[in-house]
Protein backbone atom coordinates (compact mmCIF):
# COMPACT_ATOMS: atom_id res chain seq x y z
CA UNK A 1 0.00 0.00 0.00
CA UNK A 2 2.62 2.43 1.12
CA UNK A 3 4.85 1.31 -1.67
CA UNK A 4 2.26 1.85 -4.34
CA UNK A 5 1.42 5.37 -3.16
CA UNK A 6 5.09 6.11 -3.19
CA UNK A 7 5.52 4.88 -6.72
CA UNK A 8 2.43 6.64 -7.93
CA UNK A 9 3.49 9.85 -6.28
CA UNK A 10 6.90 9.40 -7.85
CA UNK A 11 5.29 8.95 -11.18
CA UNK A 12 3.26 12.08 -10.71
CA UNK A 13 6.34 13.92 -9.54
CA UNK A 14 8.37 12.58 -12.40
CA UNK A 15 5.75 13.48 -14.93
CA UNK A 16 5.28 16.95 -13.62
CA UNK A 17 8.96 17.73 -13.49
CA UNK A 18 9.65 16.29 -16.89
CA UNK A 19 6.75 18.17 -18.44
CA UNK A 20 7.92 21.34 -16.76
CA UNK A 21 11.35 20.80 -18.22
CA UNK A 22 9.86 20.13 -21.60
CA UNK A 23 7.79 23.25 -21.50
CA UNK A 24 10.96 25.21 -20.99
CA UNK A 25 13.02 23.42 -23.57
CA UNK A 26 10.69 23.10 -26.52
CA UNK A 27 12.69 23.14 -29.70
CA UNK A 28 11.72 26.09 -31.89
CA UNK A 29 11.30 24.72 -35.41
CA UNK A 30 10.52 26.78 -38.50
CA UNK A 31 9.00 24.92 -41.40
CA UNK A 32 8.51 26.55 -44.75
CA UNK A 33 4.90 25.49 -45.28
CA UNK A 34 2.02 23.79 -43.51
CA UNK A 35 2.48 20.23 -44.79
CA UNK A 36 6.08 20.10 -43.59
CA UNK A 37 4.98 21.69 -40.33
CA UNK A 38 2.52 18.87 -39.75
CA UNK A 39 5.23 16.25 -40.36
CA UNK A 40 7.59 18.02 -37.95
CA UNK A 41 4.99 18.12 -35.21
CA UNK A 42 4.21 14.45 -35.78
CA UNK A 43 7.86 13.53 -35.27
CA UNK A 44 8.61 16.08 -32.57
CA UNK A 45 5.29 15.82 -30.73
CA UNK A 46 5.53 17.56 -27.36
CA UNK A 47 9.20 18.44 -27.75
CA UNK A 48 8.81 20.93 -30.55
CA UNK A 49 7.13 24.22 -31.24
CA UNK A 50 6.52 24.48 -34.98
CA UNK A 51 5.94 27.69 -36.91
CA UNK A 52 4.95 27.59 -40.56
CA UNK A 53 6.11 30.47 -42.72
CA UNK A 54 3.48 29.96 -45.40
CA UNK A 55 0.24 29.46 -43.55
CA UNK A 56 -2.63 27.10 -44.26
CA UNK A 57 -4.21 27.50 -47.70
CA UNK A 58 -1.21 29.66 -48.67
CA UNK A 59 0.83 29.41 -51.84
CA UNK A 60 4.52 28.75 -51.21
CA UNK A 61 5.49 29.33 -54.86
CA UNK A 62 5.02 33.03 -54.34
CA UNK A 63 5.53 34.33 -50.84
CA UNK A 64 6.49 37.66 -49.34
CA UNK A 65 8.36 37.10 -46.08
CA UNK A 66 7.93 39.73 -43.37
CA UNK A 67 10.50 40.83 -40.78
CA UNK A 68 8.51 38.73 -38.30
CA UNK A 69 9.39 35.67 -40.36
CA UNK A 70 13.06 36.60 -40.43
CA UNK A 71 12.95 37.19 -36.69
CA UNK A 72 11.33 33.82 -36.11
CA UNK A 73 14.03 32.15 -38.19
CA UNK A 74 16.87 33.85 -36.37
CA UNK A 75 15.47 32.57 -33.07
CA UNK A 76 14.81 29.05 -34.35
CA UNK A 77 16.88 26.01 -33.53
CA UNK A 78 15.92 24.06 -36.61
CA UNK A 79 14.73 25.12 -40.05
CA UNK A 80 12.95 22.57 -42.21
CA UNK A 81 12.48 23.19 -45.90
CA UNK A 82 11.18 21.05 -48.71
CA UNK A 83 14.04 21.70 -51.11
CA UNK A 84 13.93 20.86 -54.84
CA UNK A 85 13.65 24.63 -55.31
CA UNK A 86 10.10 24.66 -54.05
CA UNK A 87 10.71 27.68 -51.82
CA UNK A 88 12.89 29.87 -54.01
CA UNK A 89 12.70 32.67 -51.44
CA UNK A 90 14.05 30.55 -48.58
CA UNK A 91 17.85 30.80 -49.06
CA UNK A 92 17.68 34.60 -49.16
CA UNK A 93 15.49 34.68 -46.08
CA UNK A 94 17.81 32.39 -44.14
CA UNK A 95 20.77 34.52 -45.15
CA UNK A 96 18.96 37.73 -44.29
CA UNK A 97 18.01 36.35 -40.89
CA UNK A 98 21.63 35.33 -40.34
CA UNK A 99 20.53 31.87 -39.30
CA UNK A 100 23.46 29.59 -38.45
CA UNK A 101 21.69 26.58 -36.99
CA UNK A 102 20.71 23.20 -38.33
CA UNK A 103 18.79 23.01 -41.58
CA UNK A 104 16.87 20.00 -42.81
CA UNK A 105 16.06 19.71 -46.48
CA UNK A 106 13.22 17.24 -46.17
CA UNK A 107 13.21 16.04 -49.76
CA UNK A 108 16.85 14.99 -49.73
CA UNK A 109 17.15 11.46 -50.99
CA UNK A 110 13.76 11.07 -52.61
CA UNK A 111 13.37 9.71 -56.08
CA UNK A 112 12.86 12.82 -58.15
CA UNK A 113 10.59 13.40 -61.10
CA UNK A 114 11.84 15.63 -63.86
CA UNK A 115 9.29 18.19 -64.98
CA UNK A 116 10.50 18.20 -68.55
CA UNK A 117 9.38 14.65 -69.08
CA UNK A 118 7.00 14.67 -66.20
CA UNK A 119 3.32 15.09 -65.71
CA UNK A 120 3.29 18.81 -66.13
CA UNK A 121 2.02 20.84 -69.04
CA UNK A 122 4.23 18.71 -71.27
CA UNK A 123 1.49 16.18 -71.24
CA UNK A 124 -0.99 18.56 -72.64
CA UNK A 125 0.85 18.53 -75.94
CA UNK A 126 0.12 14.94 -76.74
CA UNK A 127 -3.01 14.75 -78.77
CA UNK A 128 -2.79 11.06 -79.12
CA UNK A 129 -4.42 9.08 -76.40
CA UNK A 130 -2.48 5.86 -76.81
CA UNK A 131 0.74 7.56 -76.11
CA UNK A 132 -0.22 8.21 -72.58
CA UNK A 133 0.47 5.09 -70.78
CA UNK A 134 3.55 4.39 -72.80
CA UNK A 135 4.79 7.76 -71.82
CA UNK A 136 4.30 7.16 -68.21
CA UNK A 137 6.45 4.13 -68.29
CA UNK A 138 8.99 5.93 -70.33
CA UNK A 139 9.29 8.57 -67.67
CA UNK A 140 10.38 6.01 -65.23
CA UNK A 141 12.98 4.68 -67.58
CA UNK A 142 14.25 8.16 -68.23
CA UNK A 143 14.59 8.80 -64.60
CA UNK A 144 16.51 5.66 -64.01
CA UNK A 145 18.90 6.45 -66.81
CA UNK A 146 19.27 9.87 -65.41
CA UNK A 147 20.27 8.45 -62.10
CA UNK A 148 22.66 6.08 -63.77
CA UNK A 149 24.43 8.99 -65.33
CA UNK A 150 24.69 11.22 -62.39
CA UNK A 151 24.57 9.21 -59.23
CA UNK A 152 27.34 7.12 -57.97
CA UNK A 153 24.97 6.04 -55.23
CA UNK A 154 22.38 4.94 -57.68
CA UNK A 155 22.09 1.47 -56.28
CA UNK A 156 21.85 2.68 -52.75
CA UNK A 157 18.99 4.91 -53.54
CA UNK A 158 17.04 2.30 -55.36
CA UNK A 159 17.55 -0.20 -52.66
CA UNK A 160 16.08 2.32 -50.35
CA UNK A 161 13.05 3.09 -52.43
CA UNK A 162 12.15 -0.17 -54.01
CA UNK A 163 12.87 -2.38 -51.09
CA UNK A 164 11.44 -2.37 -47.63
CA UNK A 165 12.21 0.92 -46.01
CA UNK A 166 15.24 0.18 -43.98
CA UNK A 167 16.22 2.99 -41.71
CA UNK A 168 19.73 3.13 -42.97
CA UNK A 169 21.88 6.16 -42.56
CA UNK A 170 22.74 6.45 -46.19
CA UNK A 171 20.33 9.29 -46.78
CA UNK A 172 22.68 11.97 -45.69
CA UNK A 173 25.14 10.85 -48.27
CA UNK A 174 22.64 11.86 -50.88
CA UNK A 175 22.76 15.46 -49.86
CA UNK A 176 25.19 16.41 -52.56
CA UNK A 177 23.15 14.78 -55.24
CA UNK A 178 19.91 16.46 -54.45
CA UNK A 179 21.31 19.73 -55.64
CA UNK A 180 21.93 18.85 -59.24
CA UNK A 181 19.72 19.84 -62.14
CA UNK A 182 17.93 22.64 -60.39
CA UNK A 183 14.73 23.83 -61.89
CA UNK A 184 13.88 20.68 -63.81
CA UNK A 185 12.61 18.75 -60.86
CA UNK A 186 9.02 18.63 -59.74
CA UNK A 187 9.16 19.85 -56.13
CA UNK A 188 5.76 18.54 -55.01
CA UNK A 189 7.31 15.36 -53.66
CA UNK A 190 5.01 15.06 -50.64
CA UNK A 191 2.18 13.73 -52.77
CA UNK A 192 4.00 10.43 -52.72
CA UNK A 193 3.68 8.68 -49.38
CA UNK A 194 6.94 6.86 -50.15
CA UNK A 195 8.69 10.20 -50.32
CA UNK A 196 7.10 11.41 -47.12
CA UNK A 197 8.67 8.48 -45.31
CA UNK A 198 12.01 9.89 -46.45
CA UNK A 199 10.85 13.31 -45.27
CA UNK A 200 10.08 11.86 -41.85
CA UNK A 201 13.52 10.25 -41.60
CA UNK A 202 15.22 13.49 -42.52
CA UNK A 203 13.16 15.46 -40.05
CA UNK A 204 13.82 12.95 -37.26
CA UNK A 205 17.51 13.14 -37.99
CA UNK A 206 17.48 16.91 -37.84
CA UNK A 207 15.61 16.89 -34.54
CA UNK A 208 18.02 14.35 -33.06
CA UNK A 209 20.93 16.50 -34.13
CA UNK A 210 19.45 19.51 -32.36
CA UNK A 211 18.09 17.70 -29.34
CA UNK A 212 20.01 14.43 -28.79
CA UNK A 213 18.48 13.91 -25.34
CA UNK A 214 15.14 12.90 -26.79
CA UNK A 215 16.57 10.69 -29.51
CA UNK A 216 14.44 7.76 -28.44
CA UNK A 217 11.22 9.74 -28.59
CA UNK A 218 11.95 11.07 -32.04
CA UNK A 219 12.86 7.65 -33.35
CA UNK A 220 9.76 6.14 -31.81
CA UNK A 221 7.49 8.91 -33.14
CA UNK A 222 8.97 8.60 -36.60
CA UNK A 223 8.49 4.87 -36.51
CA UNK A 224 4.86 5.19 -35.38
CA UNK A 225 4.12 7.77 -38.00
CA UNK A 226 5.71 5.71 -40.75
CA UNK A 227 3.48 2.83 -39.71
CA UNK A 228 0.49 5.11 -40.14
CA UNK A 229 1.83 6.13 -43.54
CA UNK A 230 2.24 2.49 -44.56
CA UNK A 231 -1.32 1.76 -43.55
CA UNK A 232 -2.63 4.78 -45.39
CA UNK A 233 -0.68 3.91 -48.50
CA UNK A 234 -2.23 0.45 -48.62
CA UNK A 235 -5.68 1.84 -47.98
CA UNK A 236 -5.42 4.52 -50.65
CA UNK A 237 -4.04 2.08 -53.22
CA UNK A 238 -6.98 -0.20 -52.53
CA UNK A 239 -9.40 2.69 -52.91
CA UNK A 240 -7.92 3.73 -56.23
CA UNK A 241 -7.84 0.14 -57.42
CA UNK A 242 -11.64 0.28 -57.57
CA UNK A 243 -11.32 2.62 -60.54
CA UNK A 244 -10.12 1.01 -63.80
CA UNK A 245 -6.76 2.39 -64.83
CA UNK A 246 -8.02 3.65 -68.16
CA UNK A 247 -10.45 5.92 -66.35
CA UNK A 248 -7.93 7.47 -64.01
CA UNK A 249 -7.48 10.77 -65.77
CA UNK A 250 -8.05 14.06 -64.04
CA UNK A 251 -7.32 17.74 -64.53
CA UNK A 252 -5.92 20.11 -61.91
CA UNK A 253 -5.04 23.84 -62.18
CA UNK A 254 -1.28 23.49 -61.72
CA UNK A 255 0.89 20.42 -62.15
CA UNK A 256 1.31 19.50 -58.49
CA UNK A 257 0.49 15.83 -58.57
CA UNK A 258 3.33 14.27 -60.55
CA UNK A 259 4.42 12.07 -57.65
CA UNK A 260 0.87 11.11 -56.80
CA UNK A 261 0.45 10.12 -60.44
CA UNK A 262 3.53 7.94 -60.32
CA UNK A 263 2.53 6.15 -57.14
CA UNK A 264 -1.10 5.56 -57.90
CA UNK A 265 -1.11 5.33 -61.70
CA UNK A 266 -3.39 8.29 -62.19
CA UNK A 267 -2.85 10.61 -65.13
CA UNK A 268 -2.93 14.26 -64.13
CA UNK A 269 -3.13 17.04 -66.66
CA UNK A 270 -2.78 20.73 -65.91
CA UNK A 271 -2.90 23.98 -67.90
CA UNK A 272 -0.30 25.58 -65.62
CA UNK A 273 3.20 24.23 -65.09
CA UNK A 274 4.58 23.05 -61.76
CA UNK A 275 4.66 26.58 -60.39
CA UNK A 276 1.57 28.70 -59.93
CA UNK A 277 3.73 31.60 -61.03
CA UNK A 278 3.51 30.68 -64.71
CA UNK A 279 0.73 31.74 -67.03
CA UNK A 280 -1.02 29.26 -69.29
CA UNK A 281 -0.91 29.82 -73.03
CA UNK A 282 -3.85 29.34 -75.36
CA UNK A 283 -2.00 26.39 -76.88
CA UNK A 284 -1.80 24.60 -73.52
CA UNK A 285 -5.47 25.15 -72.78
CA UNK A 286 -6.53 24.12 -76.28
CA UNK A 287 -4.44 20.96 -76.18
CA UNK A 288 -5.91 20.11 -72.81
CA UNK A 289 -9.46 20.56 -74.06
CA UNK A 290 -8.76 18.45 -77.14
CA UNK A 291 -7.36 15.78 -74.92
CA UNK A 292 -10.34 15.85 -72.59
CA UNK A 293 -12.62 15.34 -75.60
CA UNK A 294 -10.59 12.48 -77.04
CA UNK A 295 -9.60 10.71 -73.86
CA UNK A 296 -12.83 10.86 -71.92
CA UNK A 297 -11.30 12.58 -68.95
CA UNK A 298 -13.79 12.16 -66.19
CA UNK A 299 -13.16 14.94 -63.77
CA UNK A 300 -11.57 18.33 -63.36
CA UNK A 301 -10.58 19.58 -59.93
CA UNK A 302 -9.92 22.86 -58.20
CA UNK A 303 -7.02 23.41 -55.83
CA UNK A 304 -6.99 25.17 -52.51
CA UNK A 305 -4.10 27.44 -53.46
CA UNK A 306 -4.58 28.07 -57.16
CA UNK A 307 -6.50 30.39 -59.45
CA UNK A 308 -9.41 28.16 -60.36
CA UNK A 309 -11.01 30.31 -63.05
CA UNK A 310 -9.19 28.50 -65.82
CA UNK A 311 -10.51 25.19 -64.55
CA UNK A 312 -14.04 26.58 -64.55
CA UNK A 313 -13.52 27.69 -68.14
CA UNK A 314 -12.33 24.23 -69.15
CA UNK A 315 -15.22 22.61 -67.33
CA UNK A 316 -17.67 24.90 -69.11
CA UNK A 317 -16.12 24.19 -72.49
CA UNK A 318 -15.94 20.42 -72.23
CA UNK A 319 -18.93 19.71 -70.06
CA UNK A 320 -16.76 17.75 -67.63
CA UNK A 321 -17.97 18.38 -64.11
CA UNK A 322 -15.79 19.93 -61.43
CA UNK A 323 -15.16 17.03 -59.09
CA UNK A 324 -14.28 19.07 -56.03
CA UNK A 325 -11.29 20.76 -54.48
CA UNK A 326 -7.94 19.02 -54.02
CA UNK A 327 -5.40 20.13 -51.45
CA UNK A 328 -2.10 20.40 -53.25
CA UNK A 329 0.52 22.60 -51.62
CA UNK A 330 -0.99 23.52 -48.28
CA UNK A 331 -3.15 22.07 -45.56
CA UNK A 332 -6.56 23.44 -44.72
CA UNK A 333 -7.81 25.09 -41.55
CA UNK A 334 -8.49 22.75 -38.64
CA UNK A 335 -12.24 22.68 -39.24
CA UNK A 336 -11.85 21.73 -42.90
CA UNK A 337 -11.17 18.25 -44.25
CA UNK A 338 -7.40 18.44 -44.82
CA UNK A 339 -5.97 19.68 -41.54
CA UNK A 340 -3.14 17.15 -41.39
CA UNK A 341 -1.03 15.40 -44.00
CA UNK A 342 -2.75 12.07 -43.43
CA UNK A 343 -6.18 13.66 -43.73
CA UNK A 344 -5.12 15.57 -46.81
CA UNK A 345 -4.02 12.44 -48.67
CA UNK A 346 -7.16 10.62 -47.61
CA UNK A 347 -9.36 13.53 -48.65
CA UNK A 348 -7.65 13.92 -52.04
CA UNK A 349 -8.03 10.23 -52.82
CA UNK A 350 -11.65 10.21 -51.62
CA UNK A 351 -12.42 13.20 -53.81
CA UNK A 352 -10.73 11.72 -56.87
CA UNK A 353 -12.27 8.28 -56.46
CA UNK A 354 -15.74 9.73 -55.89
CA UNK A 355 -15.51 11.89 -58.98
CA UNK A 356 -14.19 9.07 -61.14
CA UNK A 357 -16.92 6.68 -60.07
CA UNK A 358 -19.63 8.97 -61.34
Amino acid sequence: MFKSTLTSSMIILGLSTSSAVMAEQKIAVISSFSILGDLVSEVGQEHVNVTNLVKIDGDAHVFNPTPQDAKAISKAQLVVTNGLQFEGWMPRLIEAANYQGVQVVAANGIEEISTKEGHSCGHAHHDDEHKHHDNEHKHHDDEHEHHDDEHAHHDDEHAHHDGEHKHHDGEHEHHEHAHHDHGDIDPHAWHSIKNVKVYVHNIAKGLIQVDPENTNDYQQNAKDYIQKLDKLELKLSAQLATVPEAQRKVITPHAAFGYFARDFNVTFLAPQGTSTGSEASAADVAALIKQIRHDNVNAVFMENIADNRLIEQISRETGVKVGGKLYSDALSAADEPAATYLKMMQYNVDTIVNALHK
Partner: protein
Amino acid sequence: MSAQLYELFIAPFSEFVFMQRALWGILVLSISATPVGVFLTLRRMSLTGDAMAHAILPGAAIGFLISGLSVTAMTIGGIVAGCVVAVLAGMVARHSNAEEDSSLAAFYLLSLAIGVLIISANGSNVDLLHVLFGSTLALNDDALILLTIIATISILALAILYRPLVMECVDPHFFKTISKLSAVAHYGFLLLVVLNLVAGFHALGTLMAVGLMILPAAIARFWSNRLGGMLFVAFITAVISGYFGLFLSYHASLATSPAIVLVLGILYIISLIFGRQGGLIFKNNS
Protein backbone atom coordinates in the same frame (compact mmCIF):
# COMPACT_ATOMS: atom_id res chain seq x y z
CA MET B 1 -5.23 26.00 -99.60
CA SER B 2 -8.30 27.64 -98.21
CA ALA B 3 -8.75 24.66 -95.92
CA GLN B 4 -5.26 25.22 -94.58
CA LEU B 5 -5.90 28.90 -94.08
CA TYR B 6 -9.11 28.05 -92.29
CA GLU B 7 -7.23 25.60 -90.11
CA LEU B 8 -4.62 28.22 -89.31
CA PHE B 9 -6.69 31.35 -88.76
CA ILE B 10 -10.28 30.38 -88.04
CA ALA B 11 -10.25 26.91 -86.55
CA PRO B 12 -8.71 27.86 -83.19
CA PHE B 13 -11.60 30.27 -82.68
CA SER B 14 -14.37 28.12 -84.09
CA GLU B 15 -13.29 25.04 -82.18
CA PHE B 16 -12.78 26.51 -78.72
CA VAL B 17 -15.25 28.60 -76.80
CA PHE B 18 -12.53 29.98 -74.56
CA MET B 19 -10.82 31.51 -77.61
CA GLN B 20 -14.09 33.12 -78.69
CA ARG B 21 -14.58 34.51 -75.22
CA ALA B 22 -11.05 35.88 -75.14
CA LEU B 23 -11.54 37.50 -78.55
CA TRP B 24 -14.86 38.99 -77.50
CA GLY B 25 -13.28 40.35 -74.35
CA ILE B 26 -10.46 42.00 -76.30
CA LEU B 27 -12.88 43.40 -78.88
CA VAL B 28 -15.13 44.96 -76.26
CA LEU B 29 -12.16 46.31 -74.37
CA SER B 30 -10.75 47.80 -77.58
CA ILE B 31 -13.98 49.69 -78.24
CA SER B 32 -13.86 51.50 -74.93
CA ALA B 33 -10.21 51.57 -73.91
CA THR B 34 -8.61 52.83 -77.12
CA PRO B 35 -10.50 56.16 -77.35
CA VAL B 36 -9.65 56.76 -73.70
CA GLY B 37 -6.04 56.00 -74.57
CA VAL B 38 -6.09 58.43 -77.49
CA PHE B 39 -7.29 61.24 -75.25
CA LEU B 40 -4.74 60.28 -72.62
CA THR B 41 -1.85 60.53 -75.09
CA LEU B 42 -3.19 63.76 -76.59
CA ARG B 43 -3.31 65.28 -73.12
CA ARG B 44 0.25 64.03 -72.52
CA MET B 45 -1.02 61.82 -69.73
CA SER B 46 0.15 58.45 -71.07
CA LEU B 47 1.82 57.54 -67.82
CA THR B 48 -1.28 58.47 -65.87
CA GLY B 49 -2.80 55.25 -67.14
CA ASP B 50 0.10 53.33 -65.68
CA ALA B 51 -0.19 55.14 -62.38
CA MET B 52 -3.93 54.54 -62.18
CA ALA B 53 -3.42 50.85 -62.92
CA HIS B 54 -1.45 50.62 -59.70
CA ALA B 55 -3.86 52.82 -57.84
CA ILE B 56 -6.77 50.41 -58.22
CA LEU B 57 -4.83 47.60 -56.55
CA PRO B 58 -5.84 48.17 -52.90
CA GLY B 59 -9.52 48.41 -53.85
CA ALA B 60 -9.34 45.17 -55.76
CA ALA B 61 -7.44 43.62 -52.86
CA ILE B 62 -10.09 44.62 -50.34
CA GLY B 63 -12.81 43.35 -52.67
CA PHE B 64 -10.91 40.10 -52.93
CA LEU B 65 -10.55 39.79 -49.17
CA ILE B 66 -14.23 40.36 -48.60
CA SER B 67 -15.65 38.01 -51.16
CA GLY B 68 -12.87 36.06 -52.85
CA LEU B 69 -12.44 36.03 -56.60
CA SER B 70 -15.76 37.72 -57.19
CA VAL B 71 -15.78 39.90 -60.28
CA THR B 72 -18.25 42.37 -58.79
CA ALA B 73 -16.46 42.91 -55.49
CA MET B 74 -13.07 43.40 -57.11
CA THR B 75 -14.57 45.75 -59.68
CA ILE B 76 -16.32 47.94 -57.15
CA GLY B 77 -13.24 48.01 -54.95
CA GLY B 78 -11.00 48.89 -57.88
CA ILE B 79 -13.29 51.67 -59.10
CA VAL B 80 -13.59 53.20 -55.63
CA ALA B 81 -9.83 53.13 -55.02
CA GLY B 82 -9.08 54.50 -58.49
CA CYS B 83 -11.59 57.32 -58.10
CA VAL B 84 -10.27 58.29 -54.69
CA VAL B 85 -6.74 58.55 -56.05
CA ALA B 86 -7.83 60.41 -59.18
CA VAL B 87 -9.94 62.93 -57.29
CA LEU B 88 -7.35 63.50 -54.57
CA ALA B 89 -4.58 63.98 -57.11
CA GLY B 90 -6.73 66.28 -59.22
CA MET B 91 -7.82 68.36 -56.23
CA VAL B 92 -4.29 68.74 -54.96
CA ALA B 93 -3.15 69.79 -58.41
CA ARG B 94 -5.94 72.29 -58.89
CA HIS B 95 -5.79 73.86 -55.45
CA SER B 96 -2.11 73.83 -54.56
CA ASN B 97 1.21 74.55 -56.13
CA ALA B 98 1.96 70.91 -56.77
CA GLU B 99 1.96 69.70 -60.36
CA GLU B 100 -0.63 67.10 -61.28
CA ASP B 101 1.97 64.49 -62.18
CA SER B 102 3.78 64.70 -58.85
CA SER B 103 0.58 64.63 -56.80
CA LEU B 104 -0.69 61.71 -58.84
CA ALA B 105 2.62 59.90 -58.33
CA ALA B 106 2.38 60.50 -54.60
CA PHE B 107 -1.16 59.19 -54.32
CA TYR B 108 -0.73 56.21 -56.57
CA LEU B 109 2.40 55.11 -54.74
CA LEU B 110 0.54 55.45 -51.47
CA SER B 111 -2.30 53.44 -52.90
CA LEU B 112 0.04 50.78 -54.24
CA ALA B 113 1.76 50.47 -50.88
CA ILE B 114 -1.59 50.00 -49.14
CA GLY B 115 -2.51 47.39 -51.72
CA VAL B 116 0.65 45.36 -51.24
CA LEU B 117 0.26 45.72 -47.48
CA ILE B 118 -3.27 44.35 -47.57
CA ILE B 119 -2.28 41.44 -49.77
CA SER B 120 0.75 40.57 -47.65
CA ALA B 121 -1.11 40.90 -44.37
CA ASN B 122 -3.39 38.18 -45.58
CA GLY B 123 -0.54 36.06 -46.92
CA SER B 124 -2.42 32.84 -46.40
CA ASN B 125 -4.48 33.39 -49.52
CA VAL B 126 -4.01 32.98 -53.23
CA ASP B 127 -1.51 35.53 -54.37
CA LEU B 128 -3.57 38.41 -55.65
CA LEU B 129 -0.77 39.89 -57.69
CA HIS B 130 -0.81 36.77 -59.76
CA VAL B 131 -4.56 37.05 -60.18
CA LEU B 132 -4.10 40.59 -61.34
CA PHE B 133 -1.68 39.46 -64.02
CA GLY B 134 -4.16 38.45 -66.59
CA SER B 135 -6.58 35.67 -67.20
CA THR B 136 -7.61 36.27 -70.79
CA LEU B 137 -8.27 32.59 -71.21
CA ALA B 138 -10.47 32.37 -68.15
CA LEU B 139 -13.07 35.03 -68.91
CA ASN B 140 -16.31 33.82 -67.40
CA ASP B 141 -19.83 35.09 -67.97
CA ASP B 142 -19.62 37.62 -65.15
CA ALA B 143 -16.42 39.11 -66.48
CA LEU B 144 -17.74 39.33 -70.06
CA ILE B 145 -20.96 41.00 -68.96
CA LEU B 146 -18.98 43.43 -66.86
CA LEU B 147 -16.67 44.23 -69.78
CA THR B 148 -19.63 44.89 -72.04
CA ILE B 149 -21.40 47.10 -69.50
CA ILE B 150 -18.26 49.15 -68.91
CA ALA B 151 -17.66 49.50 -72.64
CA THR B 152 -21.21 50.74 -73.16
CA ILE B 153 -20.97 53.23 -70.33
CA SER B 154 -17.66 54.60 -71.48
CA ILE B 155 -18.72 54.97 -75.11
CA LEU B 156 -21.82 56.91 -74.03
CA ALA B 157 -19.80 59.02 -71.62
CA LEU B 158 -17.19 59.74 -74.27
CA ALA B 159 -19.89 60.85 -76.68
CA ILE B 160 -21.17 63.33 -74.08
CA LEU B 161 -17.73 64.50 -73.00
CA TYR B 162 -16.29 64.65 -76.52
CA ARG B 163 -16.44 68.45 -77.00
CA PRO B 164 -15.12 69.45 -73.60
CA LEU B 165 -12.43 66.81 -73.84
CA VAL B 166 -11.24 68.12 -77.18
CA MET B 167 -11.12 71.59 -75.70
CA GLU B 168 -9.10 70.27 -72.77
CA CYS B 169 -6.65 68.68 -75.17
CA VAL B 170 -6.24 71.79 -77.27
CA ASP B 171 -5.83 74.40 -74.57
CA PRO B 172 -6.67 73.37 -71.04
CA HIS B 173 -5.80 76.73 -69.47
CA PHE B 174 -7.97 78.69 -71.84
CA PHE B 175 -10.79 76.21 -71.44
CA LYS B 176 -10.53 76.45 -67.65
CA THR B 177 -10.97 80.21 -67.76
CA ILE B 178 -14.03 80.26 -70.02
CA SER B 179 -16.00 77.23 -68.87
CA LYS B 180 -16.88 75.34 -65.74
CA LEU B 181 -17.11 72.20 -67.84
CA SER B 182 -13.36 71.88 -67.58
CA ALA B 183 -13.50 70.22 -64.17
CA VAL B 184 -16.38 68.00 -65.26
CA ALA B 185 -14.45 66.89 -68.32
CA HIS B 186 -11.32 66.31 -66.31
CA TYR B 187 -12.82 64.18 -63.55
CA GLY B 188 -15.27 62.45 -65.85
CA PHE B 189 -12.38 61.49 -68.04
CA LEU B 190 -10.31 60.17 -65.15
CA LEU B 191 -13.30 58.11 -64.06
CA LEU B 192 -13.39 56.62 -67.55
CA VAL B 193 -9.69 55.76 -67.28
CA VAL B 194 -10.34 53.98 -64.00
CA LEU B 195 -13.39 52.14 -65.37
CA ASN B 196 -11.49 50.88 -68.38
CA LEU B 197 -8.49 49.79 -66.37
CA VAL B 198 -10.74 47.84 -64.01
CA ALA B 199 -12.38 46.23 -67.03
CA GLY B 200 -8.95 45.57 -68.44
CA PHE B 201 -7.60 43.78 -65.42
CA HIS B 202 -10.24 41.11 -65.67
CA ALA B 203 -9.20 40.45 -69.23
CA LEU B 204 -5.49 41.12 -69.35
CA GLY B 205 -4.23 41.90 -65.88
CA THR B 206 -3.74 45.46 -64.66
CA LEU B 207 -0.43 46.25 -66.29
CA MET B 208 -1.17 44.65 -69.63
CA ALA B 209 -4.49 46.50 -69.69
CA VAL B 210 -2.54 49.76 -69.78
CA GLY B 211 -0.78 48.38 -72.87
CA LEU B 212 -4.07 47.90 -74.69
CA MET B 213 -5.06 51.44 -73.76
CA ILE B 214 -1.91 53.40 -74.56
CA LEU B 215 -0.09 51.49 -77.31
CA PRO B 216 -2.86 51.67 -79.94
CA ALA B 217 -3.10 55.40 -79.30
CA ALA B 218 0.65 55.82 -79.65
CA ILE B 219 0.53 53.85 -82.89
CA ALA B 220 -2.40 55.86 -84.23
CA ARG B 221 -0.46 59.07 -83.69
CA PHE B 222 1.94 57.96 -86.45
CA TRP B 223 -0.78 57.42 -89.01
CA SER B 224 -3.21 60.26 -88.63
CA ASN B 225 -3.22 63.86 -87.50
CA ARG B 226 -7.00 64.03 -87.21
CA LEU B 227 -8.80 62.95 -84.07
CA GLY B 228 -11.34 60.83 -85.93
CA GLY B 229 -8.61 59.09 -87.87
CA MET B 230 -6.62 58.42 -84.73
CA LEU B 231 -9.60 56.95 -82.91
CA PHE B 232 -10.27 54.67 -85.86
CA VAL B 233 -6.66 53.54 -86.33
CA ALA B 234 -6.27 52.92 -82.60
CA PHE B 235 -9.37 50.74 -82.48
CA ILE B 236 -8.35 48.73 -85.53
CA THR B 237 -4.80 48.17 -84.23
CA ALA B 238 -6.11 47.01 -80.88
CA VAL B 239 -8.46 44.49 -82.47
CA ILE B 240 -5.81 43.20 -84.87
CA SER B 241 -3.29 42.85 -82.06
CA GLY B 242 -5.83 41.11 -79.89
CA TYR B 243 -6.50 38.62 -82.66
CA PHE B 244 -2.86 37.99 -83.49
CA GLY B 245 -1.88 37.90 -79.84
CA LEU B 246 -4.35 35.07 -79.29
CA PHE B 247 -3.22 33.53 -82.57
CA LEU B 248 0.41 33.53 -81.37
CA SER B 249 -0.56 32.28 -77.95
CA TYR B 250 -2.41 29.42 -79.62
CA HIS B 251 0.15 28.41 -82.21
CA ALA B 252 3.41 29.30 -80.50
CA SER B 253 2.32 28.43 -76.97
CA LEU B 254 2.96 31.85 -75.44
CA ALA B 255 1.27 33.34 -72.41
CA THR B 256 -1.72 35.24 -73.73
CA SER B 257 -1.75 38.78 -72.40
CA PRO B 258 1.96 39.44 -72.91
CA ALA B 259 1.58 38.03 -76.43
CA ILE B 260 -1.14 40.59 -77.20
CA VAL B 261 0.91 43.47 -75.84
CA LEU B 262 3.99 42.22 -77.71
CA VAL B 263 2.11 42.31 -81.01
CA LEU B 264 1.12 45.88 -80.15
CA GLY B 265 4.76 46.64 -79.41
CA ILE B 266 5.86 45.29 -82.78
CA LEU B 267 3.21 47.36 -84.53
CA TYR B 268 4.43 50.38 -82.59
CA ILE B 269 8.00 49.91 -83.79
CA ILE B 270 6.83 49.45 -87.37
CA SER B 271 4.75 52.61 -87.09
CA LEU B 272 7.64 54.45 -85.53
CA ILE B 273 9.73 53.71 -88.60
CA PHE B 274 7.18 53.79 -91.42
CA GLY B 275 4.43 55.98 -89.95
CA ARG B 276 3.19 58.66 -92.34
CA GLN B 277 2.90 61.26 -89.59
CA GLY B 278 6.30 61.80 -88.08
CA GLY B 279 7.63 58.29 -88.58
CA LEU B 280 11.41 58.14 -88.87
CA ILE B 281 11.45 57.67 -92.66
CA PHE B 282 8.84 60.28 -93.54
CA LYS B 283 9.86 62.78 -90.95
CA ASN B 284 11.38 65.24 -93.42
CA ASN B 285 8.40 65.13 -95.74
CA SER B 286 5.72 65.82 -93.20
